[in-house]
């Protein structure tokens, strides 16, 4: 309750400040207060944050299939570890994409398809007891069969995680049966297909040809009605045919994506277990990497805000620079809130499942809340430009 009141009061201040500034603007453009730079920022978001993230994710998902095929053929602890390493790398990139789940990840149901949890353990056991289904999974089109018939509660990252990890560590090769590996390979194939779908949905023809071919062969949806990629749609914000009426609306959508994940990490991913003390709400229970997941979610926000993925940012055309010109104290607040959330999440005692009610978790929740709130102020400022 306090948080909402604070946000109302701070919105009063922000709205007052911004309203005064925007009165002078040209009334001819549909975004009365827009500076004209918004389309560049939206474009950069696509080029420097979305594309590298989904490209890396698609590549790692592909590599994961290879590692699992190798492991199935040659079950050794070293091969388990190799698969686990690539699994975690792929997962990192997915979690770093969660600040922009709008678009293909949501529209095509890719998010629930590859990231539903918890796994349906009874469903899994039933599957293992079904020779007919296992035979279909073992076939050449096992990935397609998996995607069409297993249902979201048996697919995606957490299904593979269940096979590879236990109690936070890679399993011994001897602890994994051949049938479990059949399942893992098929599910990883389906995961790869969906990551290709994400990549092609945003990159369009810029995606690797082999990935485009695969997605076409599988007849997976990759465009908005009208045949455009999501990247093209956002680059053309404000022009005819784009689902974004104005470039400012595109920036609002980008910020809204960040707000959604900040709120979800604080309120749900950490908050639900912390407040209800219910361990069943914890997301990555087999690998016990929940805190890394949360951290990467905030990195996702940082990448979006700072103009690109870590190591490849161009801050000149970032939301950070944009807001710096519009309202430098608000920009400073955003940076501080992002850093605070990262610090507080990093301070959570690991693994999360064994430390659910630690006080540090409550601080991390507050930090995520504060980040959500300040991003709300950014959107209020943007809305004023419309």
């Amino acid at each position: 309750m306090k948080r909402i009141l604070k946000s109302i009061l701070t919105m009063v201040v922000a709205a007052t400040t911004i309203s005064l500034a925007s009165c002078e603007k040209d009334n001819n453009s549909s975004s009365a207060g827009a500076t004209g730079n918004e389309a560049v920022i939206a474009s950069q978001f696509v080029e420097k944050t979305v594309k590298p993230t989904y490209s890396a994710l698609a590549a790692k998902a592909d590599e994961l299939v290879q590692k699992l095929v190798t492991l199935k053929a040659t079950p050794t602890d070293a091969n388990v570890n190799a698969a686990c390493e690539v699994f975690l790398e792929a997962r990192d990139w997915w979690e770093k994409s969660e600040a922009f789940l709008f678009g293909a990840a949501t529209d095509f149901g890719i998010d629930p398809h590859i990231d539903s949890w918890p796994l349906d353990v009874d469903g899994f056991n039933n599957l293992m007891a079904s020779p007919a289904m296992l035979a279909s999974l073992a076939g050449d089109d096992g990935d397609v069969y998996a995607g069409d018939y297993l249902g979201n509660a048996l697919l995606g990252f957490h299904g593979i995680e269940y096979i590879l990890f236990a109690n936070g560590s890679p399993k011994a090769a001897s602890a994994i049966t051949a049938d479990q590996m059949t399942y893992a390979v098929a599910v990883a194939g389906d995961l790869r297909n969906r990551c290709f779908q994400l990549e092609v949905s945003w990159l369009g023809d810029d995606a690797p040809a082999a990935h485009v071919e695969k997605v076409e062969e599988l007849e997976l949806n990759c465009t908005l009605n009208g045949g455009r990629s999501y990247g093209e749609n956002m680059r053309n914000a404000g022009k005819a045919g784009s689902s974004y009426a104005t470039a400012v609306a595109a920036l609002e959508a980008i910020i809204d994506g960040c707000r959604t994940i900040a709120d979800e990490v604080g309120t749900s991913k950490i908050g639900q277990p912390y407040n209800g003390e219910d361990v069943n709400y914890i997301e990555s229970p087999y690998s016990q990497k929940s805190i890394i997941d949360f951290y990467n979610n905030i990195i996702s926000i940082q990448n979006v805000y700072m103009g690109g993925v870590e190591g490849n940012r161009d801050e000149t055309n970032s939301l950070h620079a944009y807001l710096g010109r519009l309202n430098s104290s608000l920009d400073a607040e955003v940076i501080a809130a992002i850093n605070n959330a990262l610090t507080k999440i990093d301070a959570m005692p690991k693994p999360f499942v064994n430390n659910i009610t630690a006080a540090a978790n409550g601080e991390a929740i507050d930090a995520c809340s504060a980040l959500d709130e300040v991003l709300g102020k950014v959107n209020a400022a943007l809305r004023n430009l419309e």
Partner: protein
Amino acid sequence: MKTLKIRPIAILAVSLLVSATAFVACADENNTPSGGSISELPEGTYTGGELGTTFNSSSSAYEDPAPAVENAGLVAAFKAGEFFFERTITQNTRPFNGLGPLYIRSSCEACHPGYGHGKRMDRYRADDWGNGYLLVVTDDQDNYLSSLTGMPQTKAVAPFKAPIDEDQIQISWLYATDRWGNQFPDGETYALIYPEVTIPEAAYYVPLQVGGNTIPYSKVRVRLESTIGVYGVGLIDAIPDDSLKAQYQKEAAYGVHLNPAIWAGNDWAPSALYACGSHGHPKRYTYALTRGPLQDAPGANAIWNITNVTHPTKMGHYMTAAYATKASQDPDVQALFYNYFPQYNLTGNVETDIYNYLMMTNIPDSLKVPEMSGDDYSNFMVWHRGLAVPAARNLGDKDVQRGKHLFSQIGCAYCHRPSWTTGDDRFHDPNGFFDEGDSRLPRFPYQKIWPYSDFVQHRLYMKNDIRTGWCRTTPLWGRGLSKICTGASDRLHDCRARNVIEAIMWHGYSTQSDAYESVVKFRNLSKSDRDAIVKFIDAI
């Protein structure tokens, strides 16, 4: 227990916001709330009233908690309840457990993508994201098959078999041509498509029965009905019963044909009222007008019957006796039942035990544990009741204003009634789980809302029409954001219209349609006027 009270500080804060922005508001046609006072915004902007509107217009626009939720301190409950809508349900893995024995979907959001309307599909698969279709399986007199649940299930958990094998369901999309050759007088054309659904006899695991009696396969008909958005249902619930009655009286006085099952001359027909304790409430939800108070309407029921997750007010299985009989006599099921459900080995007679498990009859109390707790159900209803409606956009735009004027002038607003005012919203719960006006749920008293529906059934006489032909006017609010929120913007009950023009022209397909005269007028408008109406419909 929290009492509903809008804290004075919140009122102060909101009025500070209003006065601050009013003071600095610029003369700008495209006002948003942060750029103008509430009273300066075009009428109709607050689609859900001040208590029920969100100004979010991005892809999460259908998912926000209403201000009423925030005011009542229910945001945490809202977020907790939201989980049960969004997550994939599992058989026994907590906290989203309870799937099966038979189910329609494994998650709610799969049917309500982005919390909005279902998407047009070329095939029927329960796991296809955005497939919001229910199968409507009847005889040739529109009677539902009694051997299937009213919303047929196509999925089962081991060792059970699905009532219908969905791999065999065929959806064909066919072209229709109206009396004008699908063309406006100025030459612009449009397409009209509609679905035909066939399910071969071999795909039915259950016998084909109506009222318990076998019918020949040749008499079976299958149609599709799609979900619509879930936002705003709490506001609709807050419309007073008397206001609905006045609407029927008004329409009757105009000579509008009304469904005799709902309106009998000058008062409610008996079947119009949804039983609630010792009295009844007029039905206001679903195409077929089957549900009354929200607390026992589609959401409260679907959280149980789509996934078959039991909760304190719904402890049985969504099931038919015909299916239970068939499954209990199926040697494949008999061979494996005790392996999968050892705790239901109650009599040693596997046929009896299977039947009792499926029908939840003669089950000891120790096994009657709700799969979804009362607290979780309560949180879910906070979320369900508390979803905000996105504010209307660009109402000040001159084309939108022209469209709004024409929308009324040509008669669309007779059925798509623009606004209502809610009452005191001391809601009732037919299940008795919530008290009258229970403070655990958000309320929306005395709000002027803009759903663009009269909540009355009319008939369009479309090709391969909706079952019985009678269809509640679907609310138009928020639909302009469908593309952004769901990735699609298909309209009409079976998603046959790919855009607003197709939806409008289906209203005029038949001269018998209640909307025929309005469509004739629409056709004769200039292109810019037709476009203005479309722009208006997308703005609300």
